[in-house]
């Protein structure tokens, strides 16, 4: 579409803006579900054994849980919505036009979830144990339902599957990676619940209870550690590209296309998650008496970094699309992109106040076109910068390169006619301080 104005965030880049908010939100919202299971199951055992100290701990933990998930978790979701709307309106518009009523359903579920979170928290000690436990299970069930729904929208972006041909909403929702992703997230959230429980447990004042709860919380990390590799493998088999070969290319060659970052993120994910597992076993599980709050915070941070790594992996695999095979990262429809060199960006995007390219405004217009088309992923001198990526290129080469962007398999085509392409090449040429073109090659 390329008809929206573009928010200019300087060197940070849209990717980081979205990435930071999304990572925090994913972390906390998975905790909102896994933590629900933790509360319900732990309360179930505590009630069964009439273990009052544990119930007292749960009350404190649920206070932390409620304050974190109903405020920070909820606002994070809104934050993603806002920031994606600002950074990539075409993408959010596509999703809303497809999934509006699924989102409406998600909203109903969220509303009920929040209501039950409050009911659960504020009824501690004021109602029968049986009813309170019931509320806990209700909360968990409803929050898991919210994942069941939002998962359809999330996975759609990566694997729209048959929707591309049929346009059928159910094909979009139950897309190829729907189920592996759902199971993956269910397993992850149990371990995130464990991580947060380790944090609150390490604050318990009574030694005996602290040791017991640390030991117990650490167990929550074990299932995901063993199940994860299999589920990951299942998930990868449903992905569009041959991910295995992408990963291999990153193993032997760091330069071969930027997709080597996928391998690197995968390695990082393994390293960090295994460390979390080892630390939580050596510490909270086997030696709870030698474990302190400070180290639990470090586990928490490691968990956040893993979340960030896996989420950006998901983004990486999707390149160059935001909705695979349908909408490119910069908001260009694949169907429109077919005729890229005759597109005439200035005709379609009326946000460029200059109406014609002249030798004097060439670079200004070039910058504006760059901003519209490239800034969803690149910046001039900051994140994924032209300064680094085009270092050492001459202007003619940049000009030619812009015509063959799709050859990388990572980028959408340049949408624009010859003078527009020349204008962008001149702009980038200035960034990398390329020598000016000799007069006859410029028209």
């Amino acid at each position, binding site marked *: 579409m390329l008809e929206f104005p573009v928010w*200019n965030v300087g060197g940070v880049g849209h990717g980081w803006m979205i990435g930071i908010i999304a990572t925090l939100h994913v972390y906390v919202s998975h905790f909102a579900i896994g933590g629900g299971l933790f509360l319900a199951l732990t309360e179930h055992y505590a009630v069964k054994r009439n273990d009052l100290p544990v119930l007292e701990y749960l009350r404190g933990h649920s206070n932390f849980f409620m304050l974190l998930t109903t*405020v920070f978790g909820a*606002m994070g979701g809104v934050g993603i919505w*806002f920031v994606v709307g600002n950074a990539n309106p075409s993408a959010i518009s596509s999703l809303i*036009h497809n999934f509006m009523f699924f989102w409406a*359903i998600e909203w109903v579920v969220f509303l009920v979830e*929040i*209501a039950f979170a409050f*009911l659960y928290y504020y009824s501690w000690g004021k109602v029968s144990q049986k009813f309170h436990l019931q509320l806990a299970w209700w909360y968990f069930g409803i929050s898991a339902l919210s994942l069941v729904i939002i998962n359809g929208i999330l996975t759609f972006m990566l694997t729209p599957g048959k929707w591309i041909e049929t346009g059928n909403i159910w094909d979009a929702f139950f897309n190829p990676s729907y189920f592996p992703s759902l199971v993956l997230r269910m397993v992850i959230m149990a371990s995130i619940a464990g991580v947060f429980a380790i944090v609150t447990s390490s604050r318990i004042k009574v030694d005996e209870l602290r040791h017991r709860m640390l030991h117990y919380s650490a167990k929550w990390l074990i299932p995901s550690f063993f199940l994860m590799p299999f589920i990951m493998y299942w998930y990868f088999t449903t992905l569009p590209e041959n991910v295995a070969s992408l990963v291999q290319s990153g193993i032997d060659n760091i330069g071969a296309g930027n997709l080597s970052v996928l391998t690197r993120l995968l390695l990082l994910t393994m390293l960090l998650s295994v460390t979390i597992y080892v630390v939580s076993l050596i510490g909270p599980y086997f030696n709870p008496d030698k474990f302190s709050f400070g180290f639990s915070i470090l586990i928490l941070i490691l968990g956040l970094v893993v979340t960030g790594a896996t989420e950006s992996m998901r983004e990486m695999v999707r390149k160059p699309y935001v909705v695979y095979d349908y909408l490119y990262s910069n908001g260009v429809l694949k169907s429109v992109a077919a005729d890229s060199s005759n597109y005439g960006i200035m005709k379609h995007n*009326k946000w460029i106040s200059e109406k014609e390219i002249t030798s004097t405004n060439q670079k200004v217009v070039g910058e504006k076109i760059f901003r519209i088309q490239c800034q969803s992923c690149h910046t001039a001198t900051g994140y994924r910068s032209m300064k680094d990526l085009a270092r050492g290129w001459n202007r003619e080469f940049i000009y030619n390169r812009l015509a063959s962007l799709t050859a990388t398999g990572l980028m959408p085509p340049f949408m624009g006619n010859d003078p527009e392409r020349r204008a962008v090449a001149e702009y980038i040429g200035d960034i990398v301080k390329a020598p000016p073109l000799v007069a006859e090659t410029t028209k």
Partner: protein
Amino acid sequence: MNEILPIPSPDPIAVPGDIGLILFLLYLTFFIHVVLMNVMLGGIFLTFVSELVSRLTKDGAVRENHIHLAEKMGHILPFSVSLTVTFGIAPLLFVQSIYGQFFYTSSVLMATIWLSVVLLIVIGYYSLYAYTRGFEKWANRRYLFMGLSFVMFATIAFIYTNNLTLMQTPQKWLEIYTRTNGSGWHWNMDEATLIPRYLHFLFSSFAVAGLLVTILGVREADVNRSGFMKKWGGLWFVVATLANVAVGFAFYFAIPEGPRAIFGGSEHLNFTIAHIMFFVGLVCISLTAFGKVKPAVTWIGVVATFVGIAEKIVARDHLRQAYLKEVNWTLDGLKTNPQTDVILLFFAFLIVGTGAMVWGIVKLRKELKAHATK
């Protein structure tokens, strides 16, 4: 569509439901959002005022009444934030499906400010919790939390007013984008309706919060406190509503003539009913506050006010359509492709979800009673 203005084309995917249905859902959820938002924003302000009064007054009885009210509000307000936010999501979703091309554009033009809303809510929300949780512990300083929270939410309201006025004036967009260089830092200050519109909403929130205090007064068992709350709440309602008449006129005349014409035409009936309702509300609440009447009178006033608000919400959207008609955009131009099965599923969820909440609350009240008597 307009050839010169930089309005993006509508999304190539059709709107997934009947426009009338979506507008109905938009009005319904927005109505609930507005009432909750008014309770929240006005409530925070009134509580802040109560805090100040209790600090400045020398009269022990007045102080006690205000502190009691502040504590009561302190328990309600965090819920109201949560519900306001949640009920804000739905209308925002519906509005994007219909007015997306305008709404996204204006959001991008003020993106930095727009995004900061999220941070401001988090701060305002946590500071409310700090107020409630630290009511005893930080008795001397707790009013600061309430003040901070008010500043946050009042700013958010202002940002919303900026964005929603900006979205209906595409004529100004290109100039703004060129001037700000896309930095996303734009306050829509040159908009004539901005300030009156904002004050109109702000005063409404004081009025609705006053209404809430009145209702709390009616339901209060302690005669002394009940009298105080009815008077204090009613006073806020009456004063804020009267002030809104003045602001309303300013707002009305700030609207450009073209869109304004609808109030003489298609919206005339709608508008008249709304004003009659507000008048009824004003009379009933005044009687509650300053006379001795049955609770039924109060409830009539409440219902009348709510009907008035609902009418105004419909009128607000019609005004937006009138604005956009100026740039040759109408609802008729939208393609629709209703996803009937998903819509039915949505209603099923709505019914079952409401049922679940009702079950939870009813059972909770029963349990609370049973537990208390034990």
